[in-house]
């Protein structure tokens, strides 16, 4: 019974409004200056940071779901809080990717999907956005190499 309830419970994102919760084709959510077209992630509102732009109007936009791997690393040790702490022996190192989005001309960081280590990564790989839970069950965006 409880398992059924859990399945039906709405997924909880680690950061509200940072990405769509579409499990199949998730997108990061940014904003775009309507005057100069500059994208912002995380979302920026108020005043455009392009020094040549006086824009004050922004539209929310989904960012490209895939890009090229710019660089990568891993976390061999459990990061400090607010990263969710698990028993030291239960911590599994994870890879981290910096992915270059062509249309937005920006690089976005994120964890790499569980099970993919640095040894299977190289610059230039196409990476796509997926959702996976952190240790507390909250969903975050992650990058996954496209086979």
């Amino acid at each position, binding site marked *: 019974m409880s398992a059924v309830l859990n399945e039906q419970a709405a997924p909880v994102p*680690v*950061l*509200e409004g940072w990405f769509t919760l579409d499990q199949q084709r998730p997108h990061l959510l940014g904003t775009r*200056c309507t005057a*100069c*077209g*500059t*994208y*912002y*992630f*995380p979302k920026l509102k108020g005043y455009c*940071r*392009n*020094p*040549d*732009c006086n824009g004050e109007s922004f539209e929310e936009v989904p960012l490209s779901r895939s890009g090229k791997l*710019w*660089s*990568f*690393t*891993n*976390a*061999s*040790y459990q*990061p*400090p*809080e*607010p*990263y969710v702490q698990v028993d030291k022996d239960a911590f599994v190192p*994870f890879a*981290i990717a*910096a992915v270059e989005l062509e249309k*937005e*001309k*920006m*690089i*976005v*960081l*994120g*964890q790499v999907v569980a099970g993919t280590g*640095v040894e299977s990564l*190289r*610059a*230039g790989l196409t990476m796509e956005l997926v959702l996976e839970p*952190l240790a507390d069950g909250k969903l*975050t965006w992650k990058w996954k190499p496209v086979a």
Partner: protein
Amino acid sequence: MSTNRDIAILGVGMHPWGKWGKNFVEYGVKAARDALADSGVNWRDIQFVSGAATIRNGYPGQVAGATFAQALGWQGAQVNTSYAACASGSQALAAARSKILSGECEVALVIGADTTPKGFLKPQPGDRPDDPDWVRFRIGITNPTYFALYARRRIEMYGDTLEDFAQVKIKNAQHGLANVNARYRKAFSAADVAASPMVADPLRLMDICATSDGAAAIIVSSVEYAKRIGKAKSPRIAAISTVTPSFASALVEMPDIATDSAVAVPAQSFRAALPKKAYEEAGIGPEDVSVAEVYDLSTALELDWIEDLQLCARGDAARLLREGATKVGGRLPVNPSGGLACFGEAVPAQALAQVCELTWQLRGQAGERQVANAKVGITANQGLFGHGSSVIVKA
């Protein structure tokens, strides 16, 4: 133009780096007294105290410049405090230069000191999704992540190896061996580095710098004042660059989760912009540099800085290292002090410590780590929140 914009370095002093468990004021006063003694200037003659601050040291209510002035004995000098993260020391130096060049004072004390907290740096607690520093830790991105991404990029783009990064550590450890102000004075082998645990692939524990207690102080004056007290041949500061980045950022900078978007304006490197301004200000070029002190927060970052300083073409720094050019005795020594690898970072003192080292090098007083015939030295430094600096010192 550059000559009459110079100021003189009359004296330098440091408190050794380490984990001493004392108040930062003690370290600062020791460094200041050493710098005063080195300069021959009496404390009562100092007309301006320029303090470098950090948000970490001391306790709320203490302001660096006034705190040191009081500890040295209030004597009515003008006072100022600069905070610019890791570039605080350079901004304090720039404040002193402005006072001197505008004629508001002739001789100044510039000073920075830090006491570092125990354990790892962590963000403030609570649920704060609007704070990028909180966000990145929440999803597992720590300080070494950024250095490791830059390091891996070098491997992917230029073919640098883990052995190259280890060689930077071995070189700097060798340089720091005889430096009494360095915290770590121990030689390392490639096997030592390879045996240290991987923290953020490709960086091992020994590739990443620690944080330390320490203090550095500098007495600067107008060139006229230096002549008047018989110190006409003192090294000169020919440039202090403290420019901001230019939009759009080319690299993901700590603590951000993304770069700026370069859709409307081309991406630009912040690190490369810092020395560029310094060269323009000094009216000299990278071909004139005889020694450099760069901010090696990681071993691989030293290689990035060498290229940002235009000391070689982009991607060629590891070749310079392999040739032995960047060690003392080579044609372009980098971090003869031992760098952050041997010091560990003491934020408000570190940029000043770089200038202290260049001063000793240009005076020929660096002992076993002396760079032969050093005439022009340059520093490079970068910290959080868009702060960084590059200072040029010439004989």
